[in-house]
């Protein structure tokens, strides 16, 4: 599951990555879906479902919700694919939809949180963590650390950080997905990196100095 974006989004640059989809460029697939080819949409799902669900999970930090929102993303994509700008990259377009779906869900969850009982234990509690060198952190601990640090970022910073660092999008693509200006996204990305560093460093300890 590691490096979903690298595995999936650069697919077209990796001839033979998926034998079944070898001859299908994203643009071809979109054209075929518009012509009513249902199989083409299934191929799009196979190609992009992993990066999309990973991106949504990074945004909402909830496994089941990420699955539901991925479903919603692809349903919306299918319904809107006829209106897709042919100049837009399919991955960029899908991330744009996923971003909107995740954002709506975050708003709805915030409203619903009032109904949640007092036993909710989802608050970040780092009080017991002692600094540990990065290379000695078990992978689970490192994953938890990154997930919690990511969760603590504000939405815009989390968005640009996830798209750049985990999904390997270019600045231009991020600007297209988010609608942010280049200046804002650079500034958000820089701050997000600094915040992530600040949050991880005390627990990652030596071996993690920037």
């Amino acid at each position: 599951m590691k490096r979903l974006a690298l595995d999936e989004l650069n697919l077209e640059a990796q001839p033979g990555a998926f034998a079944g989809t070898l001859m299908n460029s994203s643009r071809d697939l979109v054209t075929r879906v518009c012509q009513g080819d249902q199989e083409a949409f299934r191929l799009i799902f196979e190609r992009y479902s992993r990066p999309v669900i990973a991106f949504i999970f990074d945004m909402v930090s909830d496994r089941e919700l990420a699955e539901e929102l991925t479903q919603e993303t692809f349903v919306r994509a299918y319904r809107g694919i006829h209106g897709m700008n042919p100049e837009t990259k399919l991955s960029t377009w899908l991330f744009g939809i996923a971003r909107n779906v995740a954002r709506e869900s975050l708003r709805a969850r915030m409203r619903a949180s009032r109904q949640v009982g007092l036993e909710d234990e989802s608050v970040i509690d780092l009080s017991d963590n002692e600094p540990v060198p990065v290379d000695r952190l078990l992978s689970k601990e490192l994953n938890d650390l990154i997930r919690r640090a990511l969760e603590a970022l504000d939405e815009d910073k989390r968005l640009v950080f996830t798209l750049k660092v985990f999904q390997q999008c270019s600045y231009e693509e991020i600007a297209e997905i988010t609608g942010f200006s280049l200046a804002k996204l650079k500034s958000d990305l820089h701050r997000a990196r600094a915040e992530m560093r600040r949050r991880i460093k005390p627990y990652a300890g030596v071996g993690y100095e920037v």
Partner: protein
Amino acid sequence: MKCEVCLELLEEYIDGELAERESSEVAAHLITCASCASHSAALAAELEMFSHYDRDLEVPKTLWGKIAEQTVTPVVAPVSNSGFASWFAGLFRVPALGFSVATAFALILVAILIGSAYWQTRKFDDSKTAQGTGTAPKAVPAEIKNDRVDLPKVDNATIAVNQKHKSPRPAQVKHSGVDQSDLVSSDIDYQDMEDHDTAVHIEQTQNLLRSIRNVSVNDGEQDIDVTYDKALSRRLLNENIVLRRDAEMKGKVPAKALLSDLEPFLIDIANLPDQARPDEVRAIKERVQKTEIVAALIGY
């Protein structure tokens, strides 16, 4: 290239976003400057660390089925996919309309049955209402007609009569039309809800901080049970983070500032042990008093 320029460009360099010329200049500087090279190596190491982030997340095998239900018909894997053979067989294929037609008839039949049952029920209710109140039942069939077909033709008199008799019909008339504004919230609706959310949140936080401010703490006393306040604070902290981000994004500076001020208090309370020592509670209490945060909340 000077070091400060190099450091400023370093992230874009690592991200591969610099133009060729700038990129070469940074690369050349990194060869000659150990300090900047060390920063560059650290950034690369950081990226390497993030590349190991494993969400332990798989795409469920059932997900495509769920999506296909709402979009395409689930695709059954073809037995043979040889192009010419399937094309040739397709020429002689009879469209399978039988099942679709039968389903359509079945649905229509069910709709008629439900409709007639509903019609009977309504007529029974209306006649009861008419008997009970002594008013003329003539308006009702006309309204039912409107309810089913022509929404705009409901006259005020009919609505008035129905309101008088507390009939639920006008509400149904209102929602059966083309206007779906109740389904798609406008930005103003969202904004109202968000402002309301913030107001409710601030009121709840204010109550929590008041209870901390007013708690009596004496030296030598036993530990204080703060289980409830702690749990409440955890919930409020979650809300606070979401609302603060939202306020920041929307440029609501006063709300964002206030919510930012609240967070340290909520974190401190949330991190208290269930049985807190008097001095721990006193420290928070004194900070609440000193900073006059409760007054700020009331002001908001």
